[in-house]
């Protein structure tokens, strides 16, 4: 009996390990250059005031990612595939074009991350950005990405430094507790913009496409679904913990010292309690890893989702002549994204934040499509959405639209 139970436990663990991955990888890519920049700026400019937003954001993140994973497992199809089959070519083309532009903004942000991290070592962006674009492009096209992915993932342990630094900075835990339970919301444009950015970077539209595609690629069966769900939940909680510590560390260091984050060197000061004078090097390493990791995945996933929706051949195992649109889109995103950063005097940290605000504004659109699909009994059968899911996602859509509208209006008045 007991032996049986242990055996079952073991089997469960092994299954989880086999199914694990998509959720945790997605989460780690989620903390990309745009993410680090946005969290740093949120902490440095607003102190602990916006920390509370992470709690609703985490709940929504879990719910949305769970929906993506469930759709992937049940239908075995990608999100853009489902959108095309359900809404027809017209809606698909315009939506994918919007997603393309949004993701292009994110790719630009990744290269901004590369440029600003290497600026700390006094490497000119005119060297670092073209070089990293070529490296990323080759990594993926030559198919060596899979082996490098593990290195990227391992290097994500860098985020632990924020946790240590945050504790060493001796923040006012009482104040953090109060700000978590007693949310404050002021309607200044900069604060609204930052909240949209925080939501947009944590729950980026591209993640839903990427997560669902990875689940489909892993060919996870419906009976193993609960393992995939656990993977997604763990990943989402990890993202939020990292985000929370970046914000509170920056609040305890940068906000206190009144630093305005404009460059990586500013943001790096948050790691001073841990690394002292090496904080810049440590931060640069972390930001570079995050940027390169996402710069490898984002253009690829964007090219993939567009080709899938349009019905063009895709995948890095195809030759260029077999999948010209796929390689064309991929190369366009990588090289043009890098080229934008080469514009003289482009404010790198601003670019990263703005790209995440666009994410936040586009998210409700993607969510509406997801909600329609996941409530279709024909598609999902008995796995369609429950009531709580629909209510929470509905509120999210309304809240995001309202936030974006308020933000836009605040410029007019």
């Amino acid at each position, binding site marked *: 009996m007991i032996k049986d139970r242990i055996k079952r436990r073991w089997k469960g663990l092994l299954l989880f390990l086999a199914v694990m991955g998509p959720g945790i990888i997605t989460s780690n890519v989620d903390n990309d250059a745009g993410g680090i920049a946005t969290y740093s700026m949120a902490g440095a400019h607003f102190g602990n005031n916006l920390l509370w937003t992470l709690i609703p954001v985490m709940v929504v993140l879990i719910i949305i990612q769970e929906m993506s994973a469930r759709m992937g497992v049940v239908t*075995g*199809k990608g999100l853009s*595939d489902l959108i095309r089959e359900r809404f*027809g070519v*017209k809606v698909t083309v315009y939506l994918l074009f919007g997603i393309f532009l949004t993701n292009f903004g994110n790719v630009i942000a990744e290269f901004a991350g590369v440029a600003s991290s290497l600026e700390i070592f006094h490497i000119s962006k005119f060297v670092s950005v073209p070089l990293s674009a070529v490296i990323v492009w080759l990594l993926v096209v030559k198919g060596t990405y899979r082996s490098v992915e593990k290195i990227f993932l391992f290097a994500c342990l860098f985020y632990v430094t924020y946790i240590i630094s945050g504790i060493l900075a001796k923040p006012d835990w009482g104040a953090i507790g109060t700000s978590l339970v007693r949310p404050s919301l002021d309607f200044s444009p900069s604060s609204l913009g930052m909240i949209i950015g925080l939501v947009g970077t944590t729950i980026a539209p591209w993640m839903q496409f990427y997560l669902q595609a990875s689940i489909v690629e892993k*060919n996870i*069966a419906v009976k193993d679904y609960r393992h995939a769900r656990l993977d997604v939940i763990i990943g989402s909680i990890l993202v939020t913990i990292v985000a929370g510590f970046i914000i509170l560390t920056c609040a305890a260091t940068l906000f206190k010292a009144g630093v305005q984050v404009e460059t990586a060197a500013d943001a790096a000061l948050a790691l001073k309690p841990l690394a002292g004078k090496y904080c810049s090097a440590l931060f640069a390493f972390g930001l570079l890893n995050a940027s390169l990791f996402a710069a490898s995945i984002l253009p690829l996933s964007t090219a993939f989702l567009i080709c899938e929706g349009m*019905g063009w*051949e895709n995948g890095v195992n195809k030759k260029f002549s077999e999948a010209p649109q796929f390689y064309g889109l991929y190369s366009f995103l990588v090289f043009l994204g890098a080229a934008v950063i080469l514009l003289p005097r482009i404010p790198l940290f601003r670019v990263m934040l703005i790209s995440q605000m666009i994410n936040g504004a586009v998210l409700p659109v993607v969510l509406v499509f997801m909600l329609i699909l996941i409530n279709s009994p024909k598609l999902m059968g008995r796995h369609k959405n429950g009531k709580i899911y629909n209510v929470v996602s509905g509120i999210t859509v309304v809240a995001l639209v309202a936030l974006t509208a308020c933000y836009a209006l605040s410029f007019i008045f």
Partner: protein
Amino acid sequence: MHDDGSKMFFYLSDLLDYPVSDPEGKVHGRLTDLKVQLGELFPKVNSLVIRNRREKSALTLDWSWVETIRGRSAVLKPGAGSRLTDLEVGNREILLREDLLDKQVVDTSGAKIERVNDIHLLIVHGELLLVHVDFGLRGILRRLGWMRAIDAASDWLFTYRLPERLASWKFVQPLASDPKSNLKLNVTVRKLHELHPSDIADIIEDLDRTNRSSVFRALDTETAADTLQEVDPRLQLSLIETAPPEQASDILESMEPDEATDFLADLPEEKKERLIRTMEKPFREQVEGLLKHEAGTAGSIMTTDFLALRGDQTIADAVESFRNAFHPLDTVAYIYVTGEDRRPAGVVTLRQLLLCGREEKLGELMNPHLLKVGTDDDIKTVADVFNKYKFLAVPAVDGEGVIQGIITLHDILQATAEKL
């Protein structure tokens, strides 16, 4: 529709969502879909699907009530308004928009999966036929309403026109959009059988999971077995697992017993037992025998088709048992000579079988220098034996020295190639 001798091509996108009216101009609703009857080379449209504001669900009207149909409008015969019925889709019918437009299909001429951007229809002899499927960019642009602008621009700039990419319906294999409607697929999946199993395997790999298993299930046993062996090993198990047990065991039975055993060994216990139970008896016994052996041992790779006869039997007996063998014995190169206890004592070659007299005793002809391997020996040991002695096959014996099977050059090659 009456036959006025005219022949005219339409795109589905030129018809959908346009009003359907009677000759006096009274609008009955919008055309939302067309229903076709599959089976013929170019399937006929048999009904219009119409939606109007008054009714919640879609209505259908038989094709015979159509007076004329041309781009952007359909005119019905007088009195058609009362002939609208609720939508029902039969077994051999599909809806063009619901089941085909924007969906993935297999293009059997290129052995590729494509997405349907538009559908090309032909009016001939008063019938509306499904003739081509549009896979091209033109189909997308037409539906977006950008066609004229793009054509004008590319003509002006490059004196170039985007080419059409139409594929004849005879090369198009539709897939089930709805996993529950597999029946439709069975009707037409024969188009896939024209493809080579390795092409079918490529297609299956590219499909989504529901279509993957429904296409696989629709293949005949022979094709399914060949396809299965070509498919990415990571998918093989899930294909076998999702196939209905009778089909799965039929597929396995059409393989060599040792190959079938390799599949079974990886399946969950419960599924494995159910498959074995549905197999024919001689095959089942062989598989059960093979399954007892641990992976990586000679027993797990051995072939159980072999000939073993007693020393007092004759060449004629050997030829006779060859004739009566249940299995094709493709891999047999030697005949093993055993005592009463089924312990191998020597070997007779096929050459001797051909050249020696019919009445000669096997026991006298046999070469008594027989090399054996144990079923528990590991594959490496067996490979070394093959390497050293250049045999075509070696008998495998159990702990008591009783012959259980043979390991052929093919078996050992396959087992070692997997490791390379």
